[in-house]
C-alpha cells in the first residue's frame, strides 16, 4: 500500500545525530583540539581562511573539525558565519613592502636587496613518507633562526619599474567594490577580479592558470617575486582621525613578470600579473597571478584567443566553490515534479511517434 512520505523531520534529526557520531569517530582515540588543527594543519587552516574570506585561524580550525576535514564544507561554514558579522569599516591598504618575510624568492634575479629567503617550503623536500611521523611522539624539530631584517624589503618588480622595463600600475585611490556586498556585475574590473580569484577555489584557479601555461592564452610568466609573511593591518578610527595598527595577518603575495608588449610607437615592456591571498598559500597566489594576467588581455591590447582563462565571465562565474558545490549537489534534492512532467512528455512523444510510423515499430 501507499503511505505518503512522512517524518522528514525525524529523518533529518537522526541523520544529524549520526553525522555527529561519524565526525567524532572511534571514541577510544583522543579527540582533536582546535589548537592542534590550527598548529599542525595550518595550511588547511590557511586555505579555509583564504576561500572563506575571513582571517581567523581559530574559527577556520573549528570549521575543519566540524566538517570532518572536508575543506569546502569548512569554507562554507566560515562564509555563512562571515555573512552575519557587522562591518565596522575597512582597513588601510596593507603595505606588503613592510612584510616581515618568512619566505621571499625571486625567479627572475639571482639575488636582490633583502636576499632570497627560502623559508618553510616543501619545494626541495623529497616526497618520501616519513614514517618517523607515524610514531606516537613527534620529536620537536628546532630550526635555526636568523635575525629578521629591520628595514623594509623592497619589491623586486620595482627595480624593473625604475628602468621602465615593466608596465607601471596606475595607483588608484578608489575604494574597491566588495564582492560580498554588491552583486557581481559583468564586465567587472581588476579589483573585483582579484577579489573573486583570491576567494576562488584553489583547484579551479590552479587549473585555469595551468591551462595558460599549456598554450591556452599563454603569457610566459616568471615569478618576479613571491613573499610570505606577516603584515601590519591599520585602520583609520574616525574618533581619532588617523590610522592605528589593529593587528597583523600573514599573507602570500605573488608578482609575475610576463610576456612583453610593444609596438612600432611604443618600446617593449614586460607586463604583470598579481595575486594576494590570506595565509601561506603560494600555489594559490601564483595561480591567481597567472589568471589575473590572462584576464588583462583587453586592457593590454592583446587579442582574444578564445581561451577559457581569458574569459572573465567564464572564470568569475565558476571559480567560487561554495556556489559550485551547492548548485552541483542540489540535483540530489527531490525533482520528481519536474521529472514527472518530463515522463508525461516523453510518453506522449513516443505514443505520437508510434502512431506516425507504425510500420517501423512493427519492423523493429
Amino acid at each position, binding site marked *: *500500500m*501507499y503511505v*505518503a*512520505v*512522512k*517524518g*522528514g*523531520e525525524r*529523518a*533529518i534529526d537522526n541523520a544529524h545525530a549520526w553525522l555527529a557520531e561519524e565526525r567524532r569517530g572511534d571514541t577510544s582515540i583522543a579527540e582533536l583540539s582546535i589548537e592542534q588543527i590550527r598548529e599542525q594543519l595550518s595550511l588547511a587552516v590557511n586555505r579555509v581562511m583564504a576561500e572563506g574570506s575571513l582571517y581567523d585561524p581559530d574559527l577556520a580550525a573549528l570549521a575543519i573539525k566540524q566538517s570532518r576535514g572536508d575543506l569546502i564544507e569548512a569554507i*562554507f561554514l566560515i*562564509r*555563512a558565519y*562571515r*555573512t*552575519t558579522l*557587522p562591518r565596522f569599516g575597512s582597513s588601510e591598504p596593507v603595505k606588503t613592502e613592510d612584510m616581515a618575510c618568512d619566505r621571499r624568492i625571486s625567479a627572475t634575479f639571482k639575488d636582490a636587496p633583502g636576499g632570497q629567503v627560502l623559508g618553510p617550503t616543501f619545494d626541495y623536500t623529497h616526497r618520501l613518507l616519513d614514517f618517523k611521523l607515524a610514531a606516537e611522539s613527534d620529536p620537536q624539530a628546532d630550526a635555526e633562526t636568523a635575525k629578521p631584517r629591520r628595514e623594509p624589503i623592497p619589491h623586486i618588480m620595482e627595480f624593473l619599474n625604475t628602468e621602465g622595463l615593466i608596465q607601471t600600475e596606475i595607483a588608484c585611490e578608489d575604494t574597491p567594490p566588495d564582492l*560580498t*556586498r*554588491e*552583486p*557581481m*556585475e*559583468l*564586465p567587472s574590473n581588476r579589483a573585483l577580479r582579484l577579489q573573486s580569484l583570491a576567494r576562488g577555489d584553489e583547484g579551479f584557479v590552479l587549473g585555469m592558470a595551468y591551462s595558460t601555461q599549456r598554450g591556452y592564452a599563454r603569457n610566459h610568466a616568471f615569478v618576479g617575486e613571491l613573499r610570505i609573511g606577516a603584515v601590519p593591518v591599520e585602520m583609520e578610527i574616525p574618533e581619532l582621525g588617523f590610522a592605528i595598527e589593529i593587528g597583523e595577518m600573514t599573507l602570500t603575495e605573488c608578482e609575475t613578470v610576463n610576456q612583453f608588449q610593444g609596438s612600432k610607437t611604443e618600446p617593449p615592456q614586460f607586463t604583470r600579473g598579481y595575486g594576494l591571498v590570506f595565509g601561506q598559500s603560494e600555489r594559490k597566489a601564483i595561480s591567481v597571478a597567472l589568471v589575473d594576467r590572462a584576464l588583462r588581455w583587453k586592457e593590454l591590447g592583446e587579442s582574444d584567443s578564445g581561451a577559457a582563462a581569458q574569459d572573465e*565571465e567564464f572564470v568569475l*562565474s565558476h571559480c567560487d566553490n*561554495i*556556489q559550485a*558545490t*551547492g*548548485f*552541483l*549537489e*542540489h*540535483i540530489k*534534492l*527531490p*525533482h*520528481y*515534479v*519536474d521529472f*514527472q*512532467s*518530463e*515522463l*508525461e*512528455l516523453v510518453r*506522449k*512523444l513516443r505514443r*505520437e*511517434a508510434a502512431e*506516425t510510423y507504425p510500420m517501423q515499430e512493427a519492423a523493429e
Partner: protein
Amino acid sequence: MTDYNFAYLDEQTKRMIRRAILKGLAIPGYQVPFASREMPMPYGWGTGGVQVSAATLTPDDTLKVIDQGADDTTNAVSIRKFFEVTAGVATTENTTEASVIQTRHRIPEAELRDDQILVYQVPIPEPLRFLEPRETETRKMHALEEYGLMHVKLYEDISQHGAIATSYAYPVKVEGRYVMDPSPIPKFDNPKLEMSAIQLFGAGREQRIYALPPYTKVESLDFEDYPFEATKADHACDMCGAENSYLDEVIMDDQGSRMFVCSDTDFCAGRQQAGHLGALAAVNAEDAA
C-alpha cells in the same frame, strides 16, 4: 539561536532585499540584481527564496514551506525549521492559513488570495541562459526585447519532436514585455501564474530577484498552431479522486505497478477529509485497518 536577528538576516540586508523586491514589483518580470548573502544552507537549496522570505516575513505572519508540492519533503522541513528557530513565526501546512508560502517547483492547487505572498526558489533565473550562456549578452537581449531566439528554440522542438518539448520551467512573457523563467514548476502550473497573490522569485547563487504583482498578465510562449497546453498525467488522484490536480507517479512494488497521487499534499489531505475518495483509497483504508 538568540544571537541572530529576526529571520536571521540583519536589518540592513533585509532593507536591501526589500528594495530589490519593490523594484521587481515595479518592473514585472525584470531580473533585479541583488547582493545575495551567503546563507547557512547551500546554494541550490533555496537560498534565494529564503532571503526573500526573510525580508518579507513579519512576526505576525504564518509561514508554509513546500517542496515538490509537499510540506514534509526534507528540504521543506529544513527551511520551515530554520524560520521557526530564527524568526519564531507560526507555521502551517494549510495553504489557506498561510500568509507567506515558500515553494520549490510547484504552485499550490488552492487558489491564493490577495493577502498572501508566494515565494519561489529559483535555480537559474535567466530564461535565455541555455540559448546564450553570457550574462552580458542576455541582459542586452532583455533590454532590447530581442526574444526571437526563444521562439527558435520552440521551433526546433516542434520540427524535431512534433511538439514543444519543454515540460517545466516553461518560459512566459510578462505584461507583453519581459520573458521570464517561472522557476522549474511543471507547465501544468503556468496558467496559475496569473493570480491574486504577490509572487516573488529569489535566485541566491545567481543574485537575482524578480516579481509578479497581483493580476499580472502572464502568457506562456507558444505558436498559434501549436498552442501552449498545461498537461498532467491522464489520471485522477488515487487517494482523493481529484481530476484537476498535478499528480505524482508512485511506483508501488517490484513489478512496477503505479499509482497516481496529488503532489500537493495539503490539497489531497483536505479532499480526503471532506470525504472525497480515489480508486485506491479504500484499499489503503483496509490495509491500514
